[in-house]
């Protein structure tokens, strides 16, 4: 999965316009709409997209673009 596709998926699930956001801004602590319910939806969408199953510990850590990219192995381009 590319970084761009990951961004699009996160923004789509969180229902945010990501055009003005840097990667570092896509962070649970900075986005009010990223609540626990949307987080669950995001994990479900990521699992569907990547065909991976995340552990409970991974899910707890996937709270920003960077940590998610690390877990799903997103590429830069």
């Amino acid at each position, binding site marked *: 999965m590319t970084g761009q596709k990951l961004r699009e998926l996160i923004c789509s699930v969180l*229902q945010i316009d990501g055009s003005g956001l840097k990667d570092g801004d896509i962070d649970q602590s900075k986005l*009010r709409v990223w*609540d*626990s319910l*949307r987080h669950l939806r995001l994990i*479900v969408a990521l699992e569907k997209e990547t065909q991976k199953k*995340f*552990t*409970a510990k991974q899910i*707890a850590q996937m709270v920003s673009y960077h940590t998610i990219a690390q877990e799903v192995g997103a590429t830069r381009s």
Partner: protein
Amino acid sequence: MASSDHPLLHLIETGLSGPSRLTAIFPRTKVALTNHELLDLIGKRRCLLKEKSFPTRVILHLGKSPEYLSWLLACFAEGACVCPVDPGHGEAELKRAAAAFKPDWIVAHHPLPFLDPMPNAPVKNETIYRNSPEARSGLPPGTALCMFTSGTTGRAKGVLLSENNLAYGSELVPLAHQIAEQDRALAILPLSMINGMVTTILAILRSRSSAIYYEGMFTAYQAFQWAIEHQATWINAVPVHYAAFCNPFLSTEERTGHRVRFCRSAGSRLPVQVLQDFENHYKIPIIETMGLTETAGQVFANPMELDERKIGSVGRPVGIEAKIVSSAFEELSDGEEGEIWIRGENVFLGYLDDPTSTAQALHDGWLRTGDRARRSVDGFFTLTGRIKEIVIRGGQNVSLQEIDDTLCQHPAIALSGSVGLDADLDGETVVSFVQLKLDRKAGEKELLAHCAERLAAFKLPSQITLLEKLPLRSNGKVDKQELKRMANCFKEKAL
């Protein structure tokens, strides 16, 4: 003053009295308060309330924190009416609550640029804002809480609860779940919701037990870590959280050492599959319950004796009277489907400045809940649907009318019809259909952004679909049944 005159003050004083013991734990910020420390924090805020012109209405725009806990209880102790507004729901919700509630003060963690802060207020982590409300009508005597909810009748309204309502509500949770001093709750829900406030603050005081207040975004892993670390004996959550505990399951290693003896579920119907998966994996029972804001929380609960539970039912009435009533207001027999009506000391005073809705909700001392159910011969109630247009997401009521009203504020929208679908982990999803005005254009993104500016995140529709014409019924109203059918078709195609 006698305790019967001021039952919440009595509850606070007795609930926090006695030898020093741990009462409130905030694990993320690593704060642990004993009963004496909490009393001290409450006392400081009570002094402030008395010194500073004594506000009678206070909005608390505070997250889960020692400040929230102490302001809430200080206001209760001093007889001020509190209106909690979750800061996570944004400024628009706060402004709407302030316009309706007309508070004297707003206490907030975050800066509120549209108000002036009180100078030299001796508080560290929060700011007090003075508000000068326009003329307002009085509250019923003894009103202690105004909580905004979509209620039982469809539009967001301020539910007014008295000291007596709340004090009585606080008795029902320990009674139903046999909670004693040695118990400790893991309180996952926001404390600005009635479930969080009554079940994990007031019932904790009533049982002289303690609570761990889950701060920040919920994950099942973090919840169990804190439950183990701080020795929780029960968990208060809604179905979406139990679904998260099952997807994925925590490993044996990740849950070793816990002392949780039961979990309590409320807020919306717990899918039987989730209950069974959770119980099979974790070997911890989930007790299904039901409560309303209008009843100061819990009114039905399944028994703690597991072989007496009825899976899929919200349980039997606890501490209240309940009956099933037909649309002709006649009491129905066991097995017949109708609306649940409730009577008891916890039934609310009425809606803020809304005598019409109050009259619709209260009939001859009974609360019309808007929930449809059947009662079995052994007294268990099983929900079958709702009468009014409300969906429940993550345990919170969302008014479809409110979403439609918001969409119709957009200059390009002629008509809007929103429906709820049983869908995902957090309960029902909202799908909105809109019809544009002639010669006007608007896209889904623009309409979602319009809603996001005006509604809290949990109220946003998951999808907005533009239709050339909305289907109408013969009376000219939008045909929601047809929209629901269309939404289900779209959903099936998407799958």
